[in-house]
């Protein structure tokens, strides 16, 4: 093992080039302060620490893991004062509706284990709505596809979405784009330990049956970060509640006023 070589440094110099994250959007939703960022693992992590987020020891590795796949991150701050003023209580959830144009959707699961011990139990529910039955990677237990099943990922429902469900979802604000029929519902349960959760969920909704091992975190990206494509994605709507929070759960912030969002 040889020590890395560095150029001569001035006293107190920088170990890495400054690549600051760019703030793309800020939004307040109920008691949440949401910031959409674009940048690499270091830039996004530095932005977070500069803004009072306390990152756990595994955060640098996890941020780099995701930055190689997408440069877009979302930081969420929970404002306990605002929550108290709104009358919200422990256990209440705040749904967040995200529109992410991409032809290669994937669901971040590994991040659910951020900052936990290897034996920590991770429970989450993932709902997918697609034009047709999607192909998934890693293969969940209970799926009809051939291949080794992922530990801790279980397929519970795979069926045409009922008109009642679609009608109920269409009734939510901003959801009238959803078709009244012809959608496919997939429901997955994550019941894993943190040490098992070393993957994300790649989704191929095209019908070609080829979800990306890179998007699933099972193979390293060949090139730089995957960028969001310009193609609109109306065929995918990724759940509510838990799933949104899974996507949201990038960074935790603790404020003097109270506890933070995860």
């Amino acid at each position, binding site marked *: *093992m*040889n*020590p*890395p*070589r*560095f150029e001569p*440094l001035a*006293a*107190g*110099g*920088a*170990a*890495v080039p*400054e690549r600051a994250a760019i703030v793309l959007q800020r939004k307040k939703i109920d008691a949440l302060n949401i910031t959409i960022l674009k940048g690499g*693992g*270091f*830039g*996004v*992590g*530095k932005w*977070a*620490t500069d803004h009072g987020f306390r*990152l*756990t*020891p*595994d*955060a*640098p*590795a996890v*941020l*780099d893991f995701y930055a190689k796949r997408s440069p877009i991150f979302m930081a969420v701050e929970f404002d306990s004062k605002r929550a108290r003023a709104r009358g919200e209580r422990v256990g209440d959830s705040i749904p967040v509706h995200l529109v992410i144009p991409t032809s290669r959707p994937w669901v971040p699961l590994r991040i659910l284990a951020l*900052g936990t011990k290897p034996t920590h139990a991770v429970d989450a529910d993932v709902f997918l709505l697609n034009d047709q039955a999607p192909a998934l990677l890693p293969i969940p237990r209970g799926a009809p596809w051939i291949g080794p099943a992922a530990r801790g990922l279980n397929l519970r429902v795979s069926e045409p979405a009922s008109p009642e469900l679609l009608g109920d979802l269409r009734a939510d604000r901003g959801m009238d784009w959803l078709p009244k029929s012809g959608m496919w519902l997939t429901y997955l349960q994550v019941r894993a330990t943190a040490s098992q959760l070393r993957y994300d969920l790649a989704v191929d909704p095209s019908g070609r049956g080829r979800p990306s091992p890179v998007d699933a975190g099972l193979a390293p990206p060949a090139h730089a970060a995957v960028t969001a494509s310009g193609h609109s994605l109306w065929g995918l709507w990724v759940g509510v509640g838990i799933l949104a929070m899974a996507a949201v759960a990038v960074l935790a912030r603790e404020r003097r006023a109270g506890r933070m969002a995860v």
Partner: protein
Amino acid sequence: MEMLRARRVAAAAALVLLLAGCAASRADPLDGLRTVHVTIRWTRFHPSLFSFPDGTTVRFVIHNTDPIEHEFILGSKRVQDRVEHTAHLSHDGSVPGQITVPPGAVRRTTYTFGTPGTVLLGCHLPGHYAYGMRGSVLVSG
């Protein structure tokens, strides 16, 4: 005889592995101090194993490539335990071998390895030592 030869080969292999795992260093032409560069990445020291003769004074140049703050604390197990279990303070470098390294920054600290034995290395920000941010220095007589 064969067993003895196998033992010698194993001992030689172990020595090679130990040397390969240790940091290379060189004397600074200005002050003659040994200088060792240590990179922090993903909450780990690279390298994390060192070996020096007793009485050696080493200048450590620590490059923190992580977006979070880290510490570089050299000392005995007692020192490591004390820093781990006391209220966290920032280490400004006034104590040899103890320094805080901000995100993306480079810091230097100098330490003299006095007597033969093992000196430990660690970061004691919450959860970091348990996560595995540690190393050791073998001081030979």
